[in-house]
């Protein structure tokens, strides 16, 4: 007596005919996520032929919170704390273009010291985010040391951010007209000590992780993104620079004091998952460099322009962009002259990586999916907003 399987009734197992989407027989449709531990709150509908992915359809939206609609009901100051919620690991990065946009539309001057503090905090947050992401990248490739080390080193930088802003992750530290409060007197000294320790520590990541033959075997040559595809698909940040495009908003359109600081834009030409993991590591050295220079040059003085109770914007629109940890982050802000914005549009780097991800997964092996997915620097909460 054999076990009878009613193939008609098992979804995705209909090897005889075509599935509902008209795909060829033998194509298996898998739903990866949204509860899958390897995808975040995000679903990938993957169609495989054997173990080759023939089509990948990203399906975001599980953590959509309507940030843009929320903005229309709150005034410029009330909007600060909720706008950093989509990306709590890089909360300064996601708030930065918003305050720049509000400053332009409401014509608010920024004191010189505040610009330096913002740059320092933005670079600290860049490292805090990259370490978090690197740890998760490590653990999903089965490298648990690479999870523990960045998580522990991240604490040092979080301590600094907490010292300056009072909060460990969601700082709400940037406000239109500067930063919320000045840093304590002991901050520059402590920051230098931590940053120098961290720079030495970074070298060890190469020994344990990037030089590890297992990590290399899973990432080198996997998911190669060609330069022209990267540009046309709208890739941004480390993903774009790992494909050989030298494009960094801090250089092409410097904001605050980035044009006075000396740093390099890191690029690699390989465009594979390894390069996409290696570029952020090199960029952390540059972030330390930027933060140290800014600490050195930071003038004394006020850190915040006193605002009226309910600042109003001029009628018009403004588009501001910065280089956040994951890439170019932009705000399109339309004002009709009221204290509340008429329309706020967030263009976030994670959302821009979605078509890139679909493009890279097509034709890849199913087993390479985690290394490609995590190399995208994709953050579902940020993409959904």
């Amino acid at each position: 007596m054999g076990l009878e399987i009613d193939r008609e009734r098992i979804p995705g197992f209909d090897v005889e005919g075509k599935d509902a989407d008209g795909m060829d027989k033998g194509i298996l449709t898998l739903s990866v996520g949204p509860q899958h531990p390897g995808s975040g709150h995000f679903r990938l509908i993957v169609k495989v032929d054997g173990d080759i992915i023939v089509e990948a359809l990203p399906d975001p939206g599980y953590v959509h919170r309507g940030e843009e609609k929320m903005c229309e009901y709150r005034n410029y100051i009330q909007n600060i704390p909720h706008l950093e919620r989509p990306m709590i690991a890089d909360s300064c990065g996601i708030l930065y273009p918003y305050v720049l946009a509000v400053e332009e539309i409401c014509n608010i001057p920024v004191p010189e010291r505040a610009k330096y503090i913002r740059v320092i905090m933005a670079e600290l947050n860049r490292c805090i985010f990259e370490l978090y992401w690197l740890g998760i990248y490590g653990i999903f490739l089965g490298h648990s040391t690479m999870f523990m080390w960045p998580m522990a080193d991240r604490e040092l930088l979080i301590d600094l951010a907490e010292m300056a802003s009072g909060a460990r992750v969601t700082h709400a530290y940037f406000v239109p007209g500067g930063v919320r409060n000045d840093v304590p007197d002991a901050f520059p000294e402590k920051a230098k000590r931590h940053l120098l320790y961290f720079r030495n520590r970074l070298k060890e990541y190469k020994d344990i992780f990037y030089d590890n033959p297992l990590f290399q075997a899973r990432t080198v040559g996997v998911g190669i993104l060609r330069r022209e595809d990267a540009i046309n698909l709208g890739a941004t940040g480390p993903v774009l620079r790992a494909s050989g495009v030298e494009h960094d908003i801090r250089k092409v359109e410097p904001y605050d004091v980035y044009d006075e600081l000396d740093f390099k834009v890191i690029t690699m030409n390989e465009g594979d998952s390894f390069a996409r993991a290696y570029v952020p590591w090199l960029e952390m050295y540059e972030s330390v460099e930027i933060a140290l220079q800014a600490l050195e040059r930071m003038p004394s003085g006020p850190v915040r322009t006193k605002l009226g109770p309910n600042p109003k914007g001029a009628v018009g629109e403004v588009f501001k962009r910065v280089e956040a940890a994951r890439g170019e982050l932009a705000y399109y802000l339309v004002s009709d002259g009221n204290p509340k914005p008429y329309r706020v549009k967030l263009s976030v780097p994670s959302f821009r990586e979605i078509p890139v991800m679909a493009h890279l997964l097509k034709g890849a092996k199913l087993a390479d999916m985690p290394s490609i997915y995590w190399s995208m620097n994709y953050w579902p909460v940020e993409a959904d907003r």
Partner: protein
Amino acid sequence: MSQQGQGQASTDQLTVEKEIVDRVIARFGDKVKLAYVKPRRIRFNVSKDIILEFARYARDELGFDHPISVAGVDYPKNKLIDVVYHIGSCTNDKFRSSVLVFAVQLDRDDPVMPTLIPIYRGVEYHERETFEMLGVIFDGHPRLERLLLPEDWADIPPLRKDFHTKGREE
């Protein structure tokens, strides 16, 4: 040069921005309408009939090669929906610090325009978002379906001004 007030600091020069405007006007004449020139930002209002031609010109001739953002803005008073494309450049060194903005102004009751995927593949998900948030139909888009909202969403597109968040009706 300090970046504070990028708006004011270099208003007098704007040479790069003016070059972009001149080239576009020379090519399209009065078929496009210049909305503003600000430092590093140039906005044109383009009719939907020539939007594909315009985008192809921007990509191939001016080097504006990648989409940064696609936003829809609802203007019920004017009975319009603006679909605003923000396009950047990585390959043209001269224009890479500028953002070219072009907007298509659509009839609010019948917002239909061609998709720009043939020119910029990266707009696929941006346009899908604009479709579900403002109800704009992009002709020729391969997957114009739900993206971020719940699958059983049965209300009007939420970023239209006549949709109000529960408890926030004003």
